[in-house]
């Protein structure tokens, strides 16, 4: 009981902090912190989407950054071609990510374990090289998004605060959706497949179909993060899809606590704040971050939420 309450209290505190952040930013005049946290919230959304298949479904996708790129390029390319409406851009971004996830998932789910990790990675690398070859849309140099998605009458993305709240609303919406999914019959089957695929198949569930649907939902959510990210940086480049980015997302999930609702959000907040904090003390921040990750793996099973749980218990 007590163990639960410590991690719950920290989670609640973090959420309250995220909701109140623009207020703090306005009062203190610190605009940078709002920009930083917009990025954190978007990447938390991406990490949460990865957690759905990795934490609950046992599918270790090492190519999740591809959806960030696809969502981002959908917005960037449409903007470049003169389609500025967010009501078109965002659905296209989601549809493109879903379609990519459907194809990649159908092929990748034929393999398992490390092979699955590697094949998802390979497909993401292909997406990376395709984007690098898009000469019309900047190629290697990336594509500048001159105008943010236009949701006229609803919300103004050029307002920092409104954009932040849009991202936060998307994050919370996605987490609620994940919560609903993992507690539904569908979600229970997917989690059952993680623990024992043969048994689930013997009971009569078409394993691959369930996993594929879950994979597509996850990819679509991450595509949303990509569309938001392109709006945040006003820029999208192949680098968003590079494999180290997928590694970053994985790190956030494991760091926060895999297979927990708020773990990935906490992971993203801690990872990106740590990066920011360390890079302010020293230019060589990764020199500290790297061994820190190693130590977390060695001594911090279950990520931050797991550690908080143990701290509460002990």
């Amino acid at each position, binding site marked *: 009981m007590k163990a639960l309450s410590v991690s719950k209290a920290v989670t609640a505190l973090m959420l309250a902090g995220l909701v109140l952040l623009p207020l703090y930013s306005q009062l203190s005049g610190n605009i940078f912190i709002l920009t930083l946290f917009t990025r954190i919230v978007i990447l938390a959304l991406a990490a949460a989407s990865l957690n759905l298949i990795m934490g609950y479904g046992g599918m270790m996708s090492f190519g999740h950054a591809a959806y960030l790129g696809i969502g981002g390029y959908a917005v960037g390319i449409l903007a470049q071609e003169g389609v500025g409406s967010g009501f078109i851009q965002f659905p296209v971004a989601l549809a493109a990510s879903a379609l990519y996830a459907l194809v990649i998932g159908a092929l990748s789910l034929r393999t398992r374990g490390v092979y699955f990790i590697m094949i998802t990675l390979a497909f993401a690398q*292909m997406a990376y090289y395709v984007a690098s070859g898009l000469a019309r849309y900047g190629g290697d140099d990336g594509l500048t998004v001159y105008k943010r998605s236009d949701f006229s009458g609803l919300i103004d993305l050029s307002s920092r605060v409104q954009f932040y709240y849009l991202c936060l609303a998307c994050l919370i919406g996605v987490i609620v959706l994940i919560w609903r999914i993992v507690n539904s019959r569908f979600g229970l089957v997917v989690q059952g497949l993680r623990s024992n695929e043969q048994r689930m198949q013997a009971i009569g569930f078409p394993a691959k179909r369930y996993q594929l649907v879950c994979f597509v939902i996850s990819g679509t959510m991450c595509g949303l993060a990509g569309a938001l990210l392109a709006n945040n940086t006003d820029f999208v480049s192949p680098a968003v899809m590079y494999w180290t980015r997928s*590694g970053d997302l994985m790190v956030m999930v*494991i760091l926060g606590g895999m297979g927990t609702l708020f773990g990935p959000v906490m992971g993203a907040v801690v990872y990106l704040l740590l990066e920011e904090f360390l890079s302010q003390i020293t230019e060589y921040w*990764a020199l500290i971050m790297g061994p820190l990750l190693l130590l977390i793996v*060695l001594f911090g099973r279950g990520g931050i939420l797991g550690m908080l749980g143990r701290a509460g218990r002990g």
Partner: protein
Amino acid sequence: MLLVVEQFLNGLQFGLLLFLLAAGLTLVFGIMDLVNLAHGSLYMMGAYFAATFVAWTGNFLLGALLALGATLVLGIVLEVVALRHLYGRDHLDHVLATFGLILFFNEAVRLIWGPAGLALPLPPWLTVPVPILPGIHYPAYRLAIIVVALLVALLLYLGVMRTRIGMLIRAGASNREMIGALGINIKLLYTLVFGLGAALAGLAGLMQAPILTVQIGMGENILILAFVIIVIGGIGSIRGAFLAAIFVGMIDTLGRAFLPNLLRQILSSTAASTAAPALSSMLIYLLMAIVLVVRPEGLFPANRR
């Protein structure tokens, strides 16, 4: 004709280099079941050590030898300090921990050697073109890489298949508890295998160094290639790694060399020149995807259990 032979040899040379990297990776992965993303960092360290030691000693061979030793020692230290605590853990733990090591090594290199890349100049006797066929010359250094890598491949094969240590390594790959129960010092064996893998990565790095610039992050792209190779070849299989490495090296090199011309036959020349680089970079990933879809265990899976 000249171009074809030259590109063919380049492909062979690149493939053999990839094999050195993939062999170490598949040894560590097949035997210790450790997914080591930091393998590419050892490749990078081999190149940096070589550039440094060659500059210090003024002798290419001596510097290369010292660099090889340094990478071996580094690998052993890494295993003892960090990685041995990860055996038996989830693959994801490996990914996270060794991802941390990549960050560490990249930054350490930036701190020690600075952000600019290094060059590793070749001694004059390695820069002469060697006649290989009547009228066809090939750079001596690339030829040397082919010879050294083939030699190492042969030694590795004999070492793993014909010696007692190799027998233990293979036994350890199929059943680690059993060889421990037989009184073999598994800890030491694992440390040695990891050191060997590190030295192979270092060798690949130091041999590649004079051809490319020695720079931060140089191991990351090629690490993915090495993973592609062991996945295509079948995890834990040295023979599979060898064949897949040659195959991937050839496809990558020949694709880059000839794809633009091939595409120009079909597409307009501007479309071809934009599509070709992306397409040739994708070729091997495409190959891997096809292999995995058709044969999910790779082409030459090691005989397991």
